[in-house]
């Protein structure tokens, strides 16, 4: 199920505060799962420190936003500024679906124009960050098992003999 959460930045709060709220929402959502260690999300987001704030302030998270994808989880987070920020109805509670998150979660970062190089450099510092286009929907456990089922492991082993 695709979900979207909106966060208000300036003038409601500074870009730095908005980024902190976004980071907390991601951690609270993913760390509901027993497979995601407490504190690990903040560690994976560390390469975005400062850059995330600049993305918010530059309006780069207004339209596409960040997309968090994992089994059964597809969450878009957009951060709005200026007049649009004044109309945001925020829901900062952990997102349903987070409890079944795995340690294979991926946060897709949008194109950020002049800051694209900085975004790509940051993404290289964590296996959980990606600059690829996010999938349109969440992969399911069933579809993952199904795709594995297309490979005949015995036949592969036979090729090696």
């Amino acid at each position, binding site marked *: 199920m695709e979900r979207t959460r909106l966060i208000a930045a300036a*003038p409601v709060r500074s870009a730095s505060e908005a980024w902190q709220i976004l980071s907390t929402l991601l951690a609270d959502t993913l760390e509901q799962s027993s497979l995601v260690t407490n504190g690990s999300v903040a560690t994976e987001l560390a390469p975005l420190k400062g850059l995330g704030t*600049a993305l918010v302030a530059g309006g780069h998270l207004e339209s596409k936003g960040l997309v968090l994808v994992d089994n059964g989880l597809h969450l878009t987070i957009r951060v709005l*500024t200026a007049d649009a920020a004044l109309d945001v109805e925020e829901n900062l509670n952990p997102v349903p679906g987070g409890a079944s998150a795995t340690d294979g979660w991926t946060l897709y970062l949008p194109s950020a124009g002049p800051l694209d190089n900085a975004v790509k450099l940051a993404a290289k510092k964590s296996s959980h960050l990606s600059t690829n286009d996010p999938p349109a929907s969440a992969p399911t456990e069933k579809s993952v098992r199904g795709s594995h089922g297309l490979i005949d492991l015995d036949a592969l082993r036979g090729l090696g003999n």
Partner: protein
Amino acid sequence: MTSTSVSTATYTRTHTATHLADVILGSIADILGTLGIDVTRVFADWDRDQQAISAWIAEGSLASVALECHQPTGAVSPIFEFPVSYVGTGEGDRKFTADRAALARYLAKLQTVPAGTVYRIFCSYTGSHSSQPGWGPAARAALSGLRSYSFGTLASGPHASAGLRYFTK
């Protein structure tokens, strides 16, 4: 008989200051990224600089923020200036704008600068101003011999607005 009710919200100078400071610093990051100048120091100093610029706008003392690009040859070009204008009493009602689409079109015309170019950020004041951590007196580069281009208004709030001017050889 028809009755009409109107919902109004009042916004403070702090809202305007937060908005303008974020737009100015966000634009500086985008400009440096466009020019190919390392932007990591902007990220590292962001909170300190945002709080200083926001505080000066809130007290009405900030005249402008300037971004100077110092090339290895010693030339200082381009220079970007963000002049801040204040509304006398403040309109109080909402209207927070940021013309980022126009800024993106503007940035697309910029050329990169030589490798080794570094930047400096300056704030100028209308008069007395509060002291802010990490900021001290410094001299800006001269603008003589540079051509000037005006972007117009970059962002506005009920109590103030910020423009953008561009100086280059």
